[in-house]
């Protein structure tokens, strides 16, 4: 096995670490610093969720799924509109009961979508060039974006999880003014954490999870001993669809369900570059690093840059992740935890 060149990675890590604590060294109050960090962690959890769906599919079917973001949008649209329509259709009370039923239905829709993708896209194309599959997922992306608008509409829709948007102040006794966090973000974080934990147990402790890992490890071997690949693909895409639904729900609740969700979900790309395409812990950690990194740099580095170079404005949040990913590609293309070779299993 080739020895990894750790020097540049460590250097990059040190730079990031210094950048992280720099605001404190520069005299920013600890309370405010923690507040920004927490906010970053919560945004990061959502990136992690989308990246997770991406990694699952890449591991199990070797497909670089461009459609992950479109799946988030599609699922969120389905959830928002069904929750809106269901009270009129079946007389279920609006609000949480309607949302719960809509969630179940949207899960079903994502499962059907997984079956269709397996049948129409994967099965015919699996023996082909990986580029064909990549193009196919691009096709799925545009189809889902367009088709989603056709059935669900193209306005901005609300998802109401019944959590107040008012921020809460915690740790008032420790820091002057306390730390401001939003309840909604807190709930989102808890949901994401439960989902990640649940998936980890599912993968490690169940027969189906074991089959998924076997397929991810060596899909030809798995097929030769009679593990049904097609079924595994459906399951993986369905799980990724479910993850997209959860991400779409919490993101949609926060920002409204709209086209920009799909774009936001594209952040999963730098996240998986950072964490490694085949690593679930990498997806989670990568999401958190990027979430915190962009918040810290937006809030603290932005004003410094503006002052120093007489720039127009912030917007660091929009490019931070991509620059970091680019740096990572240069010093460690396989990501933090990924396997050395990124080719199809």
């Amino acid at each position, binding site marked *: 096995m080739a020895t990894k060149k750790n020097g540049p990675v460590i250097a990059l890590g040190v730079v990031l670490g210094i950048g992280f604590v720099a605001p404190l060294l520069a005299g920013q109050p600890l309370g405010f610093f923690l507040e920004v960090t927490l906010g970053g962690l919560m945004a990061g959890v959502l990136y992690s969720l989308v990246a997770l769906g991406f990694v699952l599919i890449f591991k199990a079917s070797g497909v670089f799924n461009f459609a992950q973001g479109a799946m988030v949008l599609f699922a969120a649209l389905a959830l928002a509109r069904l929750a809106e329509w269901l009270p009129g259709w079946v007389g279920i009370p609006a609000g949480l009961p309607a949302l719960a039923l809509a969630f179940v239905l949207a899960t079903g829709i994502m499962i059907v979508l997984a079956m269709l993708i397996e049948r129409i896209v994967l099965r015919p194309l699996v023996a082909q060039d990986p580029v064909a599959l990549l193009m196919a997922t691009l096709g799925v992306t545009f189809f889902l974006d367009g088709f989603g608008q056709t059935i669900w509409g193209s306005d901005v829709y609300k998802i109401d999880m019944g959590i107040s948007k008012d921020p809460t102040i915690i740790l008032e006794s420790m820091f002057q003014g306390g730390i401001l966090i939003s309840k909604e973000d807190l709930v989102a974080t808890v949901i994401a954490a439960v989902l990640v934990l649940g998936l980890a147990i599912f993968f490690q402790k*169940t027969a189906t999870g074991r089959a998924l*890992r076997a397929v991810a490890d*060596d899909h*030809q*071997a798995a097929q*030769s*001993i*009679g593990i049904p690949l097609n079924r595994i693909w459906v*399951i993986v895409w369905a799980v990724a669809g479910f993850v997209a639904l959860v991400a779409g729900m919490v993101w949609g609740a926060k920002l409204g369900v709209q086209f920009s969700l799909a774009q936001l979900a594209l952040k999963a790309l730098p996240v998986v570059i950072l964490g490694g395409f085949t690593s679930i812990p990498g997806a989670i950690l990568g999401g958190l690093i990027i979430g915190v990194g962009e918040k810290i740099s937006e809030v603290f580095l932005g004003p410094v840059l503006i002052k120093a170079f007489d720039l127009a404005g912030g917007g660091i949040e929009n490019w931070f992740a991509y620059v970091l990913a680019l740096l990572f590609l240069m010093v460690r293309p396989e990501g933090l935890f990924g396997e050395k070779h990124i080719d199809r299993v």
Partner: protein
Amino acid sequence: MRPRNIGDVILDVKNISLSFGGVKALQNISFDVKEHEVRAIIGPNGAGKSSMLNCINGVYHPQEGEIVYQGEVRRDMDTHHAAESGIGRTFQNLALFKGMSVLDNIMTGRNLKMKTGILAQALHLGPARAEELREREFVEHVIDFLEIQAYRKTPVGRMPYGLQKRVDLGRALAAQPKVLLLDEPMAGMNMEEKQDMCRFVLDINDEFGTTIVLIEHDMGVVMDISDRVVVLDYGRKIGDGTPEVVRNDPEVIKAYLGVGH
């Protein structure tokens, strides 16, 4: 001589032909396998032995001929179907899940026996958990049987080659197959490891009555443990019979000595 208790034909290979483009890997091959017997397939490199096993468990689909298994004609059976109907398999080039532990690898072989639904598993419901525990206990027996207890949690990729071969066997055994297809289970082993492997194969045959189809290059081993032998050469069958008969067959001797090649 071990006591033999050979039954009726369980697997009947009829006129199988398989080609890859211009390469005729198998040409009109017929032979049968009887219940509880140890049936060897031998032949020089490239003779088509592995291809034959691949046809039997549905990895390859022969262009011609049919395979009758337990009285049922099987055409275009897939690997899942084969495994489910009791055909187990090990591989010449190991096909283990290298990043997974020994226990997990062998458990994947047991997956076929696990019937609780995916939803029950996902929600970690009682029946799914009980099943997992029950089947795991069975797999622990397989691990004990193959004497690899010390490696239970070791990722397979880090084990010595000879022991990986055992894990491969264990994974096949875990499904409690009626017919076990072994593709060169002793290749690359030293004398001692070969003896161990022979012992396991014979124990499986004796204790569980498992029918065994075995590809092996070591003629000593073949003569020792098999009841009947099929000889392939360049995709054709050139011999079939008891070890004594095959060993004295002039055409077989010619193929092995390379006369005329």
